[in-house]
């Protein structure tokens, strides 16, 4: 058989995924700095679960283990999911979410490259629908008197769900800044008054905004290393900013400033690490713009008018559905067929 070319550029799926994992490290480091090391436990748990589930599913599907276990894609799903759920979540929550993400949203659809939905976001959606209470206990940042529990006490809670005597979960955790804002606004407070609360920092939630900055640094690396293109993150952030901006301009007392939205919740992580999942995003440039802009608008609407604490996951998942259609509709013109002579 005539197989060409005889040479290839040395690049591989596992290398690409590895660099995306590396790009998550600044964000994770700042996460540890501001919220304590519990996140490392859930990342480890998720990673082990992901690899075990991947191996099991490959075995069941009669696929070779080595090339797929070493492609690092399951690890990336695990890390992104772990970063999306509260770090003090009980161990089984992480395990169930990760196993669901890998088994159902990835392998049942045909494994690597064939899943229409972002596996990490499917895992998140499954958890927030099934265990909403557990998904709201976010650790209080260090700056607000976090670290009340020692690391061993946190570990103990994660694996046994037992807190030291005299401690309640409410005392050491809090709702996310986005959630807090929404609740306070529903109570009739104005944005400016709510923003005075101690959990808010310069741009958004204390601690959280710094973690977002860490993810932005990782995202910049991915852009510079040409692992991702700028279209998706920029279109998403601009769309989220613009939608929030319009509402804010109309009624600043009830709609928080757009920068708050950019640095809250999973917006920055989503822009650089979740929307950019190549398998579940469009392939054409026009398609990418529509996809990311749609996810931005949906994220804002779900955050502001929906019942969930964040809107990135559902925004992305809803847009994932549209990807085949977007690809089909936005086929670019090919060489020499762009019309108008030149």
């Amino acid at each position, binding site marked *: 058989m005539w197989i*060409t070319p*005889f*040479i*290839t550029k040395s690049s591989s799926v596992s290398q690409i995924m590895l660099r995306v994992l590396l790009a998550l490290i600044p964000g994770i480091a700042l996460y540890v700095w501001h919220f304590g090391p519990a996140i490392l436990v859930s990342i480890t748990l998720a990673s082990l679960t992901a690899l075990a589930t991947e191996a099991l599913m490959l075995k069941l599907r009669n696929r070779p283990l080595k090339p797929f276990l070493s492609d690092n894609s399951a690890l990336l799903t695990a890390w992104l999911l772990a970063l999306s759920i509260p770090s003090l979540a009980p161990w089984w929550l992480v395990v169930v979410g990760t196993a669901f993400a890998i088994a159902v949203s990835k392998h049942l659809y045909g494994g690597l490259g064939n899943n229409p939905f972002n596996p990490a976001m499917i895992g998140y959606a499954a958890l927030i629908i099934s265990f909403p209470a557990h998904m709201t206990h976010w650790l209080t940042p260090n700056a607000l008197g976090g670290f009340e529990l020692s690391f061993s006490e946190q570990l103990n809670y994660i694996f046994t769900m037992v807190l030291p005597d005299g401690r309640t979960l409410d005392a050491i955790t809090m709702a996310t800044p986005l959630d807090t804002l929404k609740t306070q606004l529903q109570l009739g407070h104005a944005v400016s008054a709510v923003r005075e609360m101690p959990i808010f920092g310069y741009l958004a939630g204390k601690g959280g905004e710094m973690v977002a900055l860490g993810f932005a640094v990782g995202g910049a690396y991915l852009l510079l290393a040409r692992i991702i293109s700028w279209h998706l993150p920029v279109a998403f952030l601009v769309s989220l900013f613009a939608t929030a901006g319009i509402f804010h301009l109309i009624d600043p007392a009830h709609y928080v400033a757009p920068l708050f939205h950019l640095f809250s919740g999973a917006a920055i992580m989503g822009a650089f690490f979740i929307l950019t999942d190549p398998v579940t995003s469009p*392939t054409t440039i026009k398609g990418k713009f529509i996809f990311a802009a749609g996810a931005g608008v949906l994220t804002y609407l779900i955050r502001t008018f929906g019942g969930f604490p964040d809107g990135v996951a559902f925004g992305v998942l809803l847009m994932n559905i549209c990807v085949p259609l977007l690809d089909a509709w936005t*086929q670019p013109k090919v060489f020499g067929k762009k019309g108008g002579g030149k």
Partner: protein
Amino acid sequence: MRKLFKFHGGVYPPTRKAESTRTPIVTAALPSKLVIPLHQHVGSRAKPVVQIGERVLKGQIIGKPESRLSSAVHASTSGTVSAIDTQLVAHHSGLPDLCITLIPDGKDEWIAHSGVDYKQTQHSELRHLLRQHGIVGLGGAVFPSDLKAYSHKHKIKTLVINGAECEPYITCDDMLMRERASDILRGAEVLRELLYAEEVLIGIEDNKPEAITAMRHAIQSELHERMEVVTVPTIYPGGGAKQLIRVLTGIEVAAGVRSTEKGMQCFNVATAYSIWRAITHGEPLLSRIITVTGNVDRAQNFEVLLGTPVNELIAQAGARADTDKHIMGGPMMGVQLPSAQVSVTKATNCIIESSPALFPPPLPALPCIRCIRCADVCPAELQPQDLFWFAKSNNFVKAEEFHLFDCIECGACAYVCPSNIPLVNYYRYAKSEILAREQEAKAAEAARERHEYRQFRIEREKQEKAAKLAQKEKAALAAKAAAATPAIIDADDEDAVQKRIDAAMARAKEQAAANIPKNTDTLTPEQQAEISMIEARRAKAHELASSEDKN
């Protein structure tokens, strides 16, 4: 500075050209035999016009062009024709083809030949000369040049001479431009004359500074006007004719469109050189420059007689023992030769000796993750990831809709694919399936038409028979009526009855005579004798059988 344009995508594989440009072009040694394929060009195979055992002279036509799209094939040196048979040839199909084997006599004796002054010669005559001298595109496409050196109804503004040579490893055009710039430019002038082209642009990639200098110097010293060497960026596949035209002029020639319709025509530098040799010296295309590189001790360029066996050529470059395959062309679009026994043809620009260390076997392919690195590098601006998906699922209608046939098979997509998917092979597979199905559909359509016509013919014959029969009956009835009239009058006349019987007998005899004669009616005496013998044997057998029955 001329304004240059960009084409979409492209890749930057290591060029590896330095190895084979250290020494000048060497004339390869006369081989022990020449195996000259009669099909070295696009179009019909040339028809052999020599006999086994015949002595031929260097430059003598041994294969005549067979149709309009064809080209002549010549004896590369003087010697004796030892065989005309099918042999393995250097072609990606791997199929054997008709070749003429020539044992050189070592005299290298030329046939009488002379050139013409192209300015004093009619264009049709010049084109005829190109065809008779076997001139085809030497960039690898081997399309007969006489058909390309013709502008049809379109006015040609720019003649592009392609010296880009974008494939890694290959340096034959580079060395030719360094050493024989003058003849290339003169050949370009012949082409300009044939095409009435206004300007000549010679595109050379910026990794060939020596060639650029040599060509510029030749333009200046020989006072060529409206002719310019344009340095173009080194990028693969920047040497594709359509890509080079785009870079030089900004014009995009779509798939299926002739560049002449856009006022462009493109020839390779080596083709221009051969045209000059053919027209003004009367030398047919007998040899070409071939880069021999890769896993060899002395990578270099050779001037090689067409038909030289590859193994005799690579031996001169010091082939190494761990060579596992021989590649004709570059590492991006080259063809793995079926064997080193095959001979070089007009399409052979480079032989890369490959070893596992040089070109490691491909890694196992992973699923496509739609990362679109392929789409980012595709010079045809296709969506390779979609085409792959359609080809894989045999969804050929969709593949065509997504412009499968615009794919130039440059391999840039497969080069960058992180999943190591042999993308080009999927496209080749889909293309060949589509073409095969089209052919099948055509054949089925023809069969259907044939069947329908047969039905129609049978029906028509039936009707004709019926009509004839009806007419006959009518005639018979009329005759009867005519005969019956007197019969009634002389009802008891026996003569009359006898007459009617006689008439009926005569009609029956006539009818019998009108019938097709039995096959026994026109027999030769020999056949008659044979039949008598058969009949006798049959009678004997019958006799025996009946006697047995009795017992």
